[in-house]
């Protein structure tokens, strides 16, 4: 039996990274630093135990691809459309100005002409994975500064593809050659982009509606979709990560994307760890790292400050508020690990030596480490410096506000129990949000249009965040699973009213201990009612008949209402969808028993 753990490089990386990560956590450092440190320790710089080949390289690539897939999942077209013009301007301006600044700094430090060119080209990129990872973890990726940064990063990625293509061609012929390569690249990208858009509108909704109920198939098909784009991009010699991003965007428009986010995130987290480690692994060795050490420090400081101001000026110029400009610029001050890739390519082509690569690596390391802290504490830093920056403030600045629910009522699971309560809740609370895991329920809600809804399993953090569980005033859970309800009670605000369900008395007691306002014991209730009815049957037949008539009315009323809704929905498109999926009837918020 081959040795998959003992001899596997990535296994060693994971274990060491965990240990360092735990230490980092205990000492209050960001985990990304720990991961990069792992790579440095295990790689040529220190112990040289692992290499970044084979499975390690695969996982690193996958990690980056999944990260961008995840990123795409969070982007809605509408969000992007609003800021697209601004982002393009900023990205353009930033590329030009930062290249110029890097050029100046390299020239001032005394590098050779070709070296200066390479350095200038290499250091213009922001570190996408670090920015995306930290912002996602802090849940700021969909804030306005986050979106601006993401937009600029994506444009940069496209620019990077072009730069890499140019570097990779064995001879840089005349301008015609360059132009045609550029043209082909842009053409292919637009093809993929259009494919993504079209499928989002025509193919995907029907496809995903069929499978969204079956969570295993859902995940695999989504991964397959991402891989499809990656393979197409890879085959067309484009950057597979941009392909993954476009795949993510195409799914982002569907209501199922939140649920998918939660399922993809753990896979991404696992692989991206390896990726961050490979950043450290790619550094050749201690000597080349330190060859230009003081130049690297000077350059890093100058570039960080310079980049910040360039970005600030550009974003501010587009009319965004001071805080947005500040945060957006602060996130982008580092030199990306791409500089290492560009550098490595440049060495292959003989444009620079390994010492210059060491200089680039050191700069990348320094700026990435510092900026990790900067991004992690960005709000705190802004608050500290706010008085000084308010001079840039003007009244006519535009800043979109992210709307979330507050003081609302949440119903987990759309079934017989919760349905009756929804109308009542509507009267008492500003908004009603329903979380459910079944596509046909979500469609019912959509067509009714009365309540807000979130498709997903309540077990998943993204879903809870989307519904803003922390800000809810009333929560009704029709799940009988104890762990789900306990998680609910742990996260909800102290003064919120929480109604949960339970099947066993032991569970009910535990839930009361954890702060539930009321525990519904459905089957005990049914037992009570039925035994009451039986009692009436044997003692007072008339009373029994009355009670039964009332109940029957209620049941038929419920059925009539849902039948009406069903009819209203079926007069819409898609006659081919079936409502039956008894192969896997699991759901997140439905009552059992």
């Amino acid at each position, binding site marked *: 039996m081959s040795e998959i753990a003992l001899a596997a490089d990535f296994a060693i990386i994971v274990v060491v990274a965990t240990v360092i990560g735990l230490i980092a956590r205990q000492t209050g450092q960001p985990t990304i630093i720990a991961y990069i440190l792992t790579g440095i320790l295990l790689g040529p710089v220190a112990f040289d135990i692992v290499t970044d080949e084979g499975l390690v390289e695969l996982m690193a690539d996958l990690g980056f691809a999944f990260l961008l897939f995840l990123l795409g999942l969070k982007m809605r077209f509408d969000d992007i459309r609003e800021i697209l013009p601004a982002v393009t301007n900023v990205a353009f301006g930033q590329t030009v100005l930062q290249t110029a600044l890097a050029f100046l700094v390299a020239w001032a430090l005394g590098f050779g002409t070709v070296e200066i060119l390479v350095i200038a080209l290499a250091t213009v990129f922001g570190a996408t994975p670090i920015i995306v990872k930290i912002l996602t973890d802090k849940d700021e990726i969909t804030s306005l500064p986050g979106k601006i940064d993401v937009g600029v990063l994506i444009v940069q990625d496209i620019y990077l593809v072009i730069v890499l293509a140019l570097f990779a061609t064995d001879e840089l012929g005349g301008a015609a050659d360059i132009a045609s390569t550029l043209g082909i690249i842009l053409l292919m990208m637009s093809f993929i982009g259009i494919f993504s858009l079209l499928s989002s509108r025509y193919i995907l909704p029907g496809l995903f509606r069929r499978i969204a109920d079956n969570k295993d198939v859902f995940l695999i098909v989504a991964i397959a979709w991402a891989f499809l784009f990656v393979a197409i991009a890879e085959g067309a010699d484009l950057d597979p990560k941009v392909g993954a991003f476009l795949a993510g965007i195409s799914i982002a428009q569907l209501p199922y994307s939140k649920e998918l986010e939660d*399922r993809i995130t753990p896979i991404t987290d696992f692989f991206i760890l390896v990726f961050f480690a490979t950043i450290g692994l790619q550094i050749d060795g201690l000597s080349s790292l330190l060859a230009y050490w003081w130049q690297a420090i000077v350059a890093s400081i100058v570039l960080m400050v310079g980049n910040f101001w360039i970005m600030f000026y550009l974003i501010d110029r587009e009319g965004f508020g001071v805080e947005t400009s500040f945060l957006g610029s602060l996130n982008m001050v580092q030199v990306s690990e791409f500089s290492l890739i560009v550098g490595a390519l440049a060495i292959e082509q003989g444009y620079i030596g390994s010492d210059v690569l060491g200089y680039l690596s050191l700069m990348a390391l320094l700026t990435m480490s510092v900026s990790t802290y900067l991004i992690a504490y960005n709000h705190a830093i802004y608050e500290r410096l706010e008085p000084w920056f308010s001079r840039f403030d003007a009244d006519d600045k535009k800043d979109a506000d992210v709307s979330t629910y507050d003081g609302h009522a949440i119903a987990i699971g759309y079934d017989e129990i919760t349905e*009756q309560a929804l109308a009542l809740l509507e009267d008492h609370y500003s908004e009603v949000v329903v979380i459910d895991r079944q596509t046909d329920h979500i469609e019912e809600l959509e067509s009714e249009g009365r309540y807000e809804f979130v498709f997903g399993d309540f077990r998943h953090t993204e879903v809870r965040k989307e519904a803003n569980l922390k800000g809810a005033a009333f929560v009704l859970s029709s799940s009988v699973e104890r762990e789900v309800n306990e998680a609910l009670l742990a996260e909800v605000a102290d003064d919120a009213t929480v*109604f949960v369900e339970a099947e066993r008395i032991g569970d009910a007691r535990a839930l009361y201990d954890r702060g539930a*306002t*009321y525990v*519904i014991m459905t089957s*005990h*209730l049914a037992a*009570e009612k039925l035994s009451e009815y039986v009692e009436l049957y044997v003692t007072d037949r008339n009373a029994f008949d009355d009670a039964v008539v009332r109940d029957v009315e209620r049941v038929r009323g419920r059925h009539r209402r849902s039948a009406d809704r069903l009819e209203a929905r079926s007069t819409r498109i898609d006659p081919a969808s079936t409502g039956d999926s008894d*192969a896997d009837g699991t759901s997140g918020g439905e009552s059992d028993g």
Partner: protein
Amino acid sequence: MAEELVIALAVVFVTAGVLSLIANQFGLSPIPFYIIAGLIAGRFVTEAEIVVLAQWGIAFLVFAFAIRIDFGDVETVLRDAEVAAVTQLIVVAPIAFGVGYLFGDLFGFADPVRNAVYFGAAVVLSSSLVGGVLLGTEIRQNLVHGRLASSIHFFDDLVAIALLLVLSTEVVTADAIAAQIGYGVVLVVVGLGIYRHGFPLLVRLADGDSELVLVGSISILIAFLAAAEYVGLSIVVGAFAAGVAIRSDGTQALEVQNGISSITDFFTAIFFVTVGALVAFPSLEVLAIAGALSALVLFVNPLVHLLSFVYEGYDARTAFLAGSSLNQVSEFALIIAIQALLMGTIADPMFDAIILAAAVTMVLTFLARRTEDVVYETVVARLFRGQHTRKVDERSSVDELSEHVVVVGYGRIGRRIVETLEEHDTPYVVVENDPVLWTELDAECRNYVLGDALAAYTWEKARVGDARLVCSTVDHRPVSEMVLDLETDADVMLRSSSAEDASELLDAGATHVAVPDVLAGEQLIATVEDLAAGETEPDELERAQRDYFRTLERYGFATRDERV
């Protein structure tokens, strides 16, 4: 170069994705379709790295399985089905071994005994992954045969792990096996130790960062795998011990579970596709072996199960339904096969045959489901009718009754109703099919019939013709319809989980249909209104409920094994 690997993985997932769409369309489990995807895409997936990833799939599969085990459940689960499980081992295993050995001899395999063991394992063990999907609804509805089948699955999984432990030596001698078992036990004990102390330490150090807990859990898996490899054990044992070490409770439990489940799904898809990819184009030998395997799994297994369940006292229908959901090759058999392939101890035709048979039986088991009821009515019921009648007579106690109430199902609701009836001195009969409840029925009920609610004789015995009310507490449509079709003037009260079904049942003549969620919904609204109007306080509500719980417990409604 990572590019080729990425393309290979892309092929794996895209084919898996497309085929799982097909599976979903027909309501089948996607697992056999992953295998089929591998059969199709095999030529493009040849990299050694992909096989390594597939082995990680094995590790994660077993890891996830072991995490889910609740040791408290082990006892209850095994108690349900020990006779059937052991009987199958004793009866079917030798037959399978014999057939396998014959093939080995016939086709000239290098080590016919070992190959026969692999063949036998493939026949005897049934699949918990596929079977679990198959039985999803039944288990949720708490039907007896669902419970029985999942017990057998669980038992088979444990047997499989033990088998993998023994089979990880290349040369099977008593010493080697003893050493293996020794190491295996040590690993599991270490796992238990980490469960007690190590894992809580990890959670504490991670300080609320669930990503670190997730990565930490995987590191534990890696550590155990490395240990297993170091002493020459199968990685399955390492993965099992690692799974034992992970706690599935606590504040981060949900997130960590979700994380491990996602990563497991990713790797296990690769595993199943790779397994299919490793199959060469089937020769006549392969087809013969696969055919025999499938025949044994599809027909002999269920038969043996049926007989042993009936012997244990279950009614024929339950026994048949449970047995027929056990007729597929287990994914653990696939793991045994692939481990053997990597060790070089299995003949190629045998390997191919096991994989093919697995895919075939997993698909057929779903299709067989559709025809289950028909097969039961036409074949099994006839055969067992006499025996059923006798059994019912033996295990019932019914006096001369008329104008009585027939209560179907002795779960929570049934017991409550019986209590009420006793209070009012009304004659009644309880109809229940779970033999585990026989002693309770005998002790607590004046009249009862232990038999299948879907068989006519049971109702005859319960004298339903003279009854005034039939009250079914079972949420199972066939039972409800059976009750409505009875030859009786009695009023009919049924139970259903959806208002839609209830409406249909009312149309068909039911006097009343209890939809527990609707009932609960009304009380819920009343309570919410009271709270909002300030007519009651949360404290009061809680107090009232807790009193209610105490009352219920006094009546004995709160035991762990309680059927709902």
